């Protein structure tokens, strides 16, 4: 028995190391690819020696590619953990910020703030964007929760999420109808979802929020594990269910709000990545799944961002397009697998 446990942990460690390797490979490939090609030697020189001499190469690397890569890594992980928390909370394998309409809620709030605020300010500070997205997320989450308590069936929950997200999109469209043309362009490109707007301040801000979210989720991994057996059992083990649920909602909303504020709504990462992670690890223990799915989400988004930038270069695809192409099949596969088990 004991040897088995050691073996399992060793397996986990191998997977983590492999993911880290993949992560670094993707970072390097990402830096190295783009419309302006920069020789590898030059890249290493610029990064290692921290050359910021306002040359084209240095600017591209320091001001465009590096922040974008970091943002993709940070937000991809955040989406995955948010998805994992939501799946645990709703006991629904395909719950995620996008499916439940939380991303749309955030988008609606950000759209509203963008259009209103741009009439008074030149640009919207990122803290305001995040705050708006957070409020929008919580709003939708509240609505979904309200309905889900009355229904309690898995498929209905998703129907509600999708309906709520339609409502939010309608309201967003309503704002757009009455917005100035320049704002519309802004909003549309943002709402397609992209990591292209990354700046160092965005990176720092989101890094702080997401790190906080990740650590908090990790610290909750014990009650999350108990919650997997259902509310009744969780409570019997001494968990304060109400407080725990609130914490779970706030955390998952914060994480997905952060993503929506900086990169727009990104679909399927939240659903697909936690499942890929569980499948890789062959466990659902939250203490492992939370950090590893963060890492896995980072890798997934780096990969998707790479494709969105390079597949049809110089034209860039929306990140949501790529994540859907790779994420949606995972969801289909999940449904088939569940059918088989049931």
């Amino acid at each position: 028995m004991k040897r088995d446990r050691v073996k399992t942990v060793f397996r986990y460690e191998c997977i983590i190391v492999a993911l880290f390797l993949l992560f670094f490979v993707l970072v390097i490939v990402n830096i190295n690819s783009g419309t302006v090609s920069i020789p590898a030697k030059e890249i290493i020189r610029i990064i290692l020696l921290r050359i910021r001499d306002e040359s084209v190469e240095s600017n591209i690397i320091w001001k465009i590619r590096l922040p974008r890569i970091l943002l993709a890594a940070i937000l991809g992980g955040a989406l995955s953990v948010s998805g994992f928390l939501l799946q645990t909370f709703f006991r629904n394998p395909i719950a995620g910020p996008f499916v439940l309409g939380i991303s749309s809620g955030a988008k609606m709030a950000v759209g509203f703030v963008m259009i209103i605020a741009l009439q008074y300010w030149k640009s919207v500070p990122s803290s305001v964007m995040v705050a708006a997205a957070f409020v929008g997320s919580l709003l939708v989450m509240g609505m979904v929760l309200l309905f889900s308590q009355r229904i309690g069936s898995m498929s209905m929950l998703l129907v509600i999420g999708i309906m709520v997200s339609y409502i939010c999109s309608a309201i967003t469209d309503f704002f757009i109808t009455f917005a100035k043309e320049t704002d519309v362009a802004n909003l549309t490109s943002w709402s397609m979802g992209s990591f292209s707007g990354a700046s160092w301040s965005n990176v720092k801000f989101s890094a702080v929020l997401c790190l906080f979210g990740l650590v908090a989720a990790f610290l909750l991994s014990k009650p999350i594990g108990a919650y997997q057996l259902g509310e009744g059992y969780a409570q019997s083990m001494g968990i304060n269910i109400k407080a725990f649920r609130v914490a779970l909602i706030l955390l998952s909303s914060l994480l997905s709000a952060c993503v929506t504020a900086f990169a727009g709504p990104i679909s399927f990462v939240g659903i697909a990545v936690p499942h890929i992670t569980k499948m890789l690890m062959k466990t659902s223990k939250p203490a492992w799944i939370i950090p590893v799915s963060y890492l896995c989400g980072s890798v997934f988004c780096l990969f998707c961002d790479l494709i969105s930038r390079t597949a049809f270069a110089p034209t860039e695809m929306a990140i949501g397009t790529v994540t859907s192409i790779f994420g949606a099949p995972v969801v289909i596969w999940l449904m088939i697998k569940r059918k088989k088990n049931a």
Partner: protein
Amino acid sequence: MYFRTEDLAVGYHKKALIHDINIAIEKGKILTLIGPNGSGKSTILKTVIKQLPKIRGKIYIDGVDLDEMTNHQLAQQVAVVLTDRIRTELMTCGEVVATGRYPYTNRLGKLTRRDHEIVQESLRRVHGEELEDQDFSAISDGQRQRIMLARAICQQPQMIILDEPTAFLDIRHKIELLDILREMAQEKGITVIMSLHEIDLATKISDYVCCVKGEVISKCGPPDEIFDDQTINSLYEVSHGSYNMLMGSVELTKPEGSPKVFVVAGDGSGIPCYRALQKKEIPFATGLLYENDVDYQVAKELSDRVVSTPAFAPVEEERLRQGESLIREASLVIDAGAWEERGNAYNRQLLRVAREADIPVIRDYPAWLKDGQHSIEAAAKAAERR
């Protein structure tokens, strides 16, 4: 008293469903709540484990008021086995059992070596060692229930509360599960409170039984003190069929009408014959039974015409006459236990009466049935036509 309630009222939405619940049991005893579906057994249990707010009254566990206990303290005292169907993902049975260690592990839930030992021991208790590495979602209902019990044991509680633990289980697994509970109560002094559907099992396993019906607990106490056939039949509103306390058995509705068949029985020989007649809805009379005979217990549930006589006393002449007159009215007589060849003088007397009255007699019912060509229904019909 380890567990005690004081004028407890339970219910939903601040409305009391059952009130004035006063239960008290000592450590290491088993208390079973019985009552029909929807009577509120689960409501009481859920209130005791704080999953439902109580309406009024007090609950004491080991002398401490439940209101003054934190969830964590309660979790170290009380473990539960609920009716919730749980869906796990990629969790082995061992991992499910290990969740019972929750109240004892550190902030991140890391299991120590001691914890792993307790998991093993709990699995052994329920004879589930071989299940440890199997996926919880892929095992049978019976195994699942045993694993959930192991999980509760793993929590090292003073008390285990189980809501209908035997639902969905077949008879073998029911017995197995209850045996384990008995063992835990006896050896480890764990107090058990549960709800059960099976009255027969409840009376056998429990130290105390509480009948939940209507707005109050109608009866509560050791099973042999509070139970008679009437209590149970009225508790479950059994109007068809009956429950026999002494035998712990349930009989189906007795056939109506004047008896066409007379069964000469005794010494347990009559029961298979009675049941066969009941199944075909053929009303029957039977005799001559001593009242300490097992046949008598079943016969009185299935027939209105039972000729019986008190045990350990000479048979009253009057009873014998009664039997003789009933047998003359019958169109078929069944000798359920080969009484013609055996001792009992009274049964031989009855059979002689039948022969004298020229009534067909099935001699030695078990042998008659064994050759496979006869059916009791056909025989009864043929006899009636005669």
